[in-house]
């Protein structure tokens, strides 16, 4: 019987249950060998195959991997295999580079779309939701318990944090809310003019800035500015074992690092938000004067009629909730950092995204509670 050629070259041939390997098998031709053999395998009728390496002159780890891959495929089809090799070097290499038994990491079962979403939600809940709630509980407890206990806090840290989170953010927050107030006013002016309802621009600006836009924009800016800084600081402390050092010195890292940030935020955020509201309304008033000829006197007169105490209190409550979410989220992702510089970057990014998302969700929930 004429040998059935597996390959174009005469390096590999198959005859009567014997796969002959010749010359050399390695990085340069192992891929070719594998691809051609895969196509050839369905033609094999024998149940036992001998892989003859006697004419093989040299082999490297890629060659051995390719041979054992053949064995694996044949064994899966229920075909048994054996080797013959006279050369000690070839035998030793076949032994040294024999791949370990392993389950391939690619899952053969494809999950459906809904199953994937379910898995993802379960994973998020399992990995994040519970530990996030535990952290909220811990921080809430220590925030109340440490009000009059300064022992586990660095001296002056509360003032530092108040300046960092609140005072230093003031210029950018004021400028941006002023511009946003103007934008809202300019966009609405055209519509209101069509109905001759110019004066209602005051209601629109005051209510939207005070109850909604002021606290939200401030929170988003603070999340981007201070939330990221908190996450990066805590993540770096974790990576460089500073958090462990605090623990082994008998200090609670939450009380030492996080609680001063919460206090600093809670004290400054309502002021920051109120000032942002004022800046937004001022921006709106300026645009109203330019586009709708509403003078500042008319604006202020009308404003005293539409500004309710409830809106101011809502704004303050919102700001306190937001800053807590921002600090706790920064702290949570900072503490969950993985080793290395890349881990710090990832934690910071995740923290900002999560903080802004949580702020928006909280805004919706509080909107439903306060303005049903």
């Amino acid at each position, binding site marked *: 019987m004429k040998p059935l050629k597996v390959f174009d070259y005469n390096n590999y041939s198959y005859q009567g249950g014997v796969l002959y390997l010749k010359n050399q098998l*390695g*990085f340069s031709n*192992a*891929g*070719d060998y*594998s*691809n051609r053999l895969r196509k050839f395998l369905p033609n094999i009728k024998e149940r036992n195959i001998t892989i003859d390496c006697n004419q093989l002159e040299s082999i*490297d*780890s*890629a060659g*051995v*991997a*390719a041979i*054992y*891959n053949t064995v694996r495929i044949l064994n899966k089809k229920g075909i048994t295999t054996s080797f013959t090799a006279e050369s000690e*070097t070839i035998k*030793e*290499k076949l032994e*040294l*580079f*024999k*791949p*370990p038994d*392993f389950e*391939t*990491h690619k899952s053969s079962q494809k999950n459906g779309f809904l199953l994937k979403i379910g898995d993802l939600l379960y994973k998020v809940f399992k990995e994040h939701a519970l530990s996030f709630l535990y952290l909220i509980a811990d921080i809430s407890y220590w925030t109340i318990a440490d009000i009059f206990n300064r022992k586990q806090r660095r001296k002056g840290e509360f003032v530092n944090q108040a300046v960092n989170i609140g005072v230093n953010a003031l210029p950018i927050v004021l400028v941006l809310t002023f511009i946003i107030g103007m934008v809202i006013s300019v966009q609405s002016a055209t519509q209101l003019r069509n109905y001759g309802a110019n004066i209602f621009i005051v209601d629109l600006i005051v209510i939207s800035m005070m109850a909604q836009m002021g606290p939200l924009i401030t929170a988003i800016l603070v999340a981007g500015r201070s939330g990221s800084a908190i996450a990066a600081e805590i993540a770096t402390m974790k990576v460089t074992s500073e958090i462990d050092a605090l623990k082994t010195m008998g200090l609670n890292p939450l009380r030492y690092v996080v609680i001063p940030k919460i206090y600093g935020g809670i004290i400054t955020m309502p002021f920051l938000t109120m000032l942002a509201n004022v800046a937004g309304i001022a921006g709106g008033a300026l645009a109203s004067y330019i586009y709708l000829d509403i003078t500042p006197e008319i604006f202020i007169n009308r404003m005293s009629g539409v500004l309710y105490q409830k809106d101011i209190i809502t704004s303050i409550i919102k700001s306190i909730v937001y800053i807590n979410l921002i600090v706790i989220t920064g702290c949570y992702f900072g503490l969950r950092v*993985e*080793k*290395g*510089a*890349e*881990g710090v970057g990832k934690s910071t990014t995740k923290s900002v995204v999560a903080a802004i998302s949580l702020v928006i969700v909280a805004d919706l929930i509080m909107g439903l509670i306060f303005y049903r």
Partner: protein
Amino acid sequence: MASNTMIEVKSLSASFDDRQVLKNVSFTINEREIAVILGGSGSGKSTIFRHMLRLYDVPYNTIRIFDKDIADLNESEQLVFFMKLGVFYQNGALLNSLTVGENVALALEQHTSLPPDIIENIVRTKLELVNLGDAYQLFPSQLSGGMLKRAALARAIIMDPPLLFCDEPGAGLDPVSLASLDQLILNLRNLLGITVVMVTHEVSSILRIADKIIFLDDGVITFKGTPQDALKSDIPVVKDFFSKGTGATLPTDH
């Protein structure tokens, strides 16, 4: 250059900011040899190492590897040169964003046309060789210091390179792991015929596997020879190094 010479360094001098680090250094390393470069801190061993890897600008006609002047390689020759080298860095130098399996497979994926299942076979074999069979899907950040080193070695030997450079392979390993690492390097040399250039301070390791010792002191080679000769040497720095090692004695022949 003799036919079995793998590396020939001839009158190599190097200086940084007027400080001469290497002074007219010359030595040869033959094929299938395991050569250890020794010396104290600042003796210039890392500078030689980095010159041989072309990480520093190499003067013409000072270093020949694979019978070629490595200062005079064009772009395609450089690629061939680097593909024939395995380099094992002291701190591992694994890419943090890739899994251990992906790190080890990187060169195979980039430089060969092997199908993915064969690549996975080779990667798992090499990881098994360095006792890291379970680390395939882990990220470098999840490995201990010793495991990182072994993963780095697996990456260095992935292409069965004829020439392997190791920078402090034993540092941070326990004696058992170190002995098995030495055995692995010996196996690779015996079976694949690779040449190994190593910077290490582990005396037990040097005596176990080294064929040649190149001892540097203040940029000058003070000793060249076998470990047996080094143990008998009267040169003070060499004597000092080995006597303060582990009270070492000659091992049985390997």
